[in-house]
């Protein structure tokens, strides 16, 4: 047999993917597009029912226990640190847990001891004193390194909430290994390929540090690959060879993911783009007669159950920032191969079907890559599951594919990366609304009164002058961009040094492309503030120190979110300018700058740390999430709001994502489910055809409407419509909202 030939590949076509590591080529040449509807899908099996029922009990216990079931306090994180763990061994067709029992969390100290110990304490646990003593005495962490190098101005910017959520005390996350490589090639072949990258006898003197660092990293990657093999062996699997059937393909890939989730604790640890890859194995097994639709679904259901149990140990501050203990195990589905052929397979349906077979769930974060030419059967099924479970997010494949090719995956919520070929340095967020206040206040913080950014004069006009404000804002943004870049260069230098993700990077090409993903918070508030200053009269109310602590706004002004170019152009101009400042700086390891308008739920915390803004937002009030218009200001209908967001440039600007949230109650989508499905398809088609990138569709049930009452910013532009009668939910007072909830949902569900 040829050296590059395995018996496990019998029946697969194509040659290029055999000679080098190229999962994408393997998929292109072997997958079977599915153009039909959902009628073939199977319910969950007896085995899955038993396993899932046990998990339900455990999840309930976890909630009753204050959100954390258990923590391993004697052993620290690591790929082979924990013995095998099971939920219900005889009934599990896909195995593997982070620790030896379900939902028991890992202590990871490599990112920083402080946060890890704080999280332990908050949940009432104490690390084994011996372990703690040794780790703290002998091991330096990422967090230690960062604070050794931080400049004074970074410290001030961080302390005053200008730069927020920086990954300087725990894992940076966002890295997706190409876990499919283990299934297709087996670990031994991957090690062999990595060893080739260490064969140079001499160092490159022009690139000395990078050369040495990379050699060390590749050696660590090989070590990690061997550990993944060892971990799999503890579950009784030899993954040195390629997977021979569908069960093994899913199991092998999952072991790769699991190693990453044992080794690291990054905020987002996403899965990748696996459905169509798995489908090739499932189709082969179905043809051989060794799998049925029912057992195929069982594999996907049980794989998804495993992903639902992923946990990380977090502090209360983290939970406050990102409500709901999210892990962002994002799995990207569908998308197109080219203009005509989609990557939709039956397994794309099977993944969505887990939301029916198991319960609706936020994790794994199922993400449909929507394209104009996706098969209608799949569009309709995704819409149906959205309406029924409210658990899918959508991203524009026609927007991303030209930039990332057709084998990219979404990390976290909106970050696209070529699988195995690009990695990301997660850069958190810069508060652009606060930056505007600094431009008005000469670099003084409006809440603490501290001088954060030196070299600017306070604007002392009675009425703010747009051109003066804008000029100062440009200067301020340019300087802040430098601070922000410095912070991220330091963070990722140290993270590579002290908390390197060896198992995940082992599943990337050695010469990987690096993206540094910056972000912005307070976007719509900054934009509306500029509009207010330009089109209305804005009078600062200053304190004794001369800092504007509030604003009098006289007259009306156009607001972002109404498809009004007068203000939407300000939004586009602002984000392009800020990105330009970031992009012009030198980035660690020659990373390419990207930018996101994404806050998830942290817009509340960032708003809390920001004084009153010239748009009328009062001190401490929440910002709108991501790229959303401020709640209640997008008053001319949902489509105009969508159109405003769709104008934010993706390519070569917000290429790390433009996040938008859209809310609707099912009855407002149409008279019956068929109508609702068709209408949602229309809305998604209309939004994405304009070059939009992301939309979170909240199809609200009663519980969500109650949540909307408590957290209005999470449900922007929420319209409740009952044939000809519309109310904007967020504009009603509390008592009336309660009434509407009672009336809209009085039927039993």
């Amino acid at each position: 047999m040829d050296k590059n030939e395995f018996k496990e590949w019998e029946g697969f076509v194509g040659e290029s993917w055999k000679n080098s590591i190229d999962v994408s080529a393997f998929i292109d040449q072997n997958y079977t597009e599915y153009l039909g509807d959902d009628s073939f899908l199977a319910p969950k099996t007896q085995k899955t029912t038993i396993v899932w029922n046990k998990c339900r009990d455990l999840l309930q216990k976890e909630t009753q226990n204050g959100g954390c079931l258990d923590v391993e306090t004697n052993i620290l994180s690591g790929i082979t640190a924990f013995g095998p763990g099971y939920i219900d061994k005889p009934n599990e067709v896909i195995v593997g847990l982070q620790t030896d029992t379900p939902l028991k969390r890992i202590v990871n100290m490599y990112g920083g001891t402080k946060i890890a110990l704080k999280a332990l304490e908050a949940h009432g646990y104490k690390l084994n004193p011996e372990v703690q003593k040794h780790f703290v005495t002998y091991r330096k962490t990422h967090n230690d390194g960062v604070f050794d190098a931080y400049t004074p101005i970074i410290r001030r910017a961080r302390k005053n909430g200008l730069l927020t959520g920086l990954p300087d005390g725990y894992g940076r996350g966002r890295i997706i290994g190409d876990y499919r490589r283990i299934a297709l090639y087996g670990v031994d072949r991957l090690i062999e390929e990595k060893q080739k990258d260490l064969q140079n006898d001499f160092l490159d003197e022009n690139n000395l540090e990078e050369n040495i660092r990379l050699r060390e990293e590749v050696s660590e990657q090989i070590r990690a690959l061997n550990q993944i093999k060892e971990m799999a062996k503890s579950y009784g699997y030899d993954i040195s060879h390629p997977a021979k059937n569908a069960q093994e393909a899913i199991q092998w890939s999952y072991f790769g993911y699991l190693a990453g989730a044992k080794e690291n604790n990054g905020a987002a640890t996403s899965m990748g783009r696996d459905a169509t890859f798995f489908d090739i194995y499932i189709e082969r097994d179905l043809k051989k007669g060794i799998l049925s639709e029912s057992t195929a679904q069982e594999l996907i259901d049980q794989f998804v159950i495993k992903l639902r149990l992923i946990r990380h140990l977090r502090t209360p501050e983290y939970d406050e920032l990102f409500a709901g203990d999210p892990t962002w195990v994002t799995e990207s589905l569908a998308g197109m191969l080219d203009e005509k052929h989609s990557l939709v397979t039956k397994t794309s349906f099977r993944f969505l079907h887990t939301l029916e077979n198991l319960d609706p769930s936020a994790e794994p974060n199922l993400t449909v890559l929507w394209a104009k030419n996706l098969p209608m059967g799949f569009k309709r099924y995704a819409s149906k599951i959205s309406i029924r479970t409210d658990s899918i997010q959508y991203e524009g494949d026609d927007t991303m594919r030209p930039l990332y090719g057709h084998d990219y995956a979404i990390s976290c919520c909106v970050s696209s990366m070529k699988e195995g070929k690009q990695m990301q340095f997660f850069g958190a967020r810069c508060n652009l609304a606060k930056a505007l206040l600094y431009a008005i206040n000469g670099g003084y913080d409006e809440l603490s009164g501290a001088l954060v950014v030196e070299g600017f004069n306070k604007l002392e006009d009675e009425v703010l002058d747009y051109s003066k404000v804008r000029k100062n804002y440009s200067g301020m943004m340019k300087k802040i961009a430098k601070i922000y870049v410095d912070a991220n260069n330091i963070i990722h230098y140290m993270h590579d040094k002290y908390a390197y993700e060896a198992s995940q990077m082992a599943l990337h090409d050695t010469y990987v492309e690096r993206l540094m993903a910056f972000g912005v918070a307070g976007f719509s508030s900054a934009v509306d503030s500029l509009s207010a200053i330009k089109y209305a009269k804005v009078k600062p109310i200053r304190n004794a120190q001369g800092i504007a602590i509030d604003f009098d706004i006289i007259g009306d002004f156009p607001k972002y979110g109404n498809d009004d170019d007068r203000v939407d152009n300000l939004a586009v101009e602002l984000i392009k300018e800020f990105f330009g400042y970031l992009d012009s700086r030198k980035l660690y390891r020659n990373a390419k700058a990207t930018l996101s308008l994404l806050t998830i739920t942290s817009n509340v915390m960032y708003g809390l740390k920001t004084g009153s803004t010239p748009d009328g937002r009062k001190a401490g009030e929440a910002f709108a999430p991501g790229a959303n218009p401020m709640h209640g200001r997008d008053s001319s209908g949902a489509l105009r709001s969508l159109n405003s967001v769709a104008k934010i440039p993706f390519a070569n600007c917000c290429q790390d994502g433009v996040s938008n949230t859209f809310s609707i109650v099912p009855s407002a989508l149409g008279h019956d489910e068929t109508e609702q499905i068709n209408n949602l398809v229309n809305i998604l088609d209309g939004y994405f055809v304009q070059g939009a990138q992301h939309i979170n569709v909240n199809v609200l049930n009663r519980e969500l409407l109650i949540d909307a009452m408590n957290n209005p910013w999470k449900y922007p532009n929420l319209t409740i419509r009952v044939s000809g009668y519309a109310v904007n939910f967020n504009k009603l007072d509390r008592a009336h909202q309660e009434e509407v909830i009672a009336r809209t949902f009085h039927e039993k569900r």
Partner: protein
Amino acid sequence: MKGYITDIETMGLVDGPGTRLVIFLSGCPLRCIYCHNPETWKISDFTQTISPHDVLNMYNKFKVYYGENGGVTFSGGEPLVQSKFVLECAKLLKKHNISTALDTSGAVSGDFSKLLDFIDLVILDVKAVDENEYKKICGNSIENYNKFLSLCQKNNKKLWLRQVIVPSLNDDENHITKLANYIKNIKNVEKVELLPYHSMARDKYKKLGIEYKLNNTMDMDKQKCIELEKKLINLINTKTS
């Protein structure tokens, strides 16, 4: 030419097929006890105006969302009150091959045959079958409605029939049977919808200083309304000898 409107819904999802632009026109001769848009009754100083070209431009702006079977729906108020304006709009829209729907009670006198030539679908609100009941609900005689329905039948217009179901007013089986027998004699009916009464408009009445007549009426149970609708459709589809 200008039309008087109270509202525009650019994402109309429940008034006609597909996703539609819905124009809510001002003015209505009826005073239905359950009306949820009392602000549309009168053409007042606060009413905005719009031209047929504005309607076309707005449709084009949002066309990408409207899919294959979307279009424009004229609702209200009672769109027939401004029938000349609706005719101008519909003519212009049909020139651009845009689907048009008229959401009406039919309760206006006049000859609308020219208008109907440019309307693809009539969504007709069947307030009541019985003359007395009609008067009780709407405050007007059923005569204009009957004439309008006859015109639709004569001109072979596609129809969607709707009725608002109010607890203890028309939510009994007897009533549904009567309605089914009535609908059986109407041709070109493509769809029948029962809409559950809700009291969410109560606040609007308060703001407008108008007395709300159904203060003691509960909202219609949605599930029950769906069941009544199923029953109605079954009865309509059952052949009688």
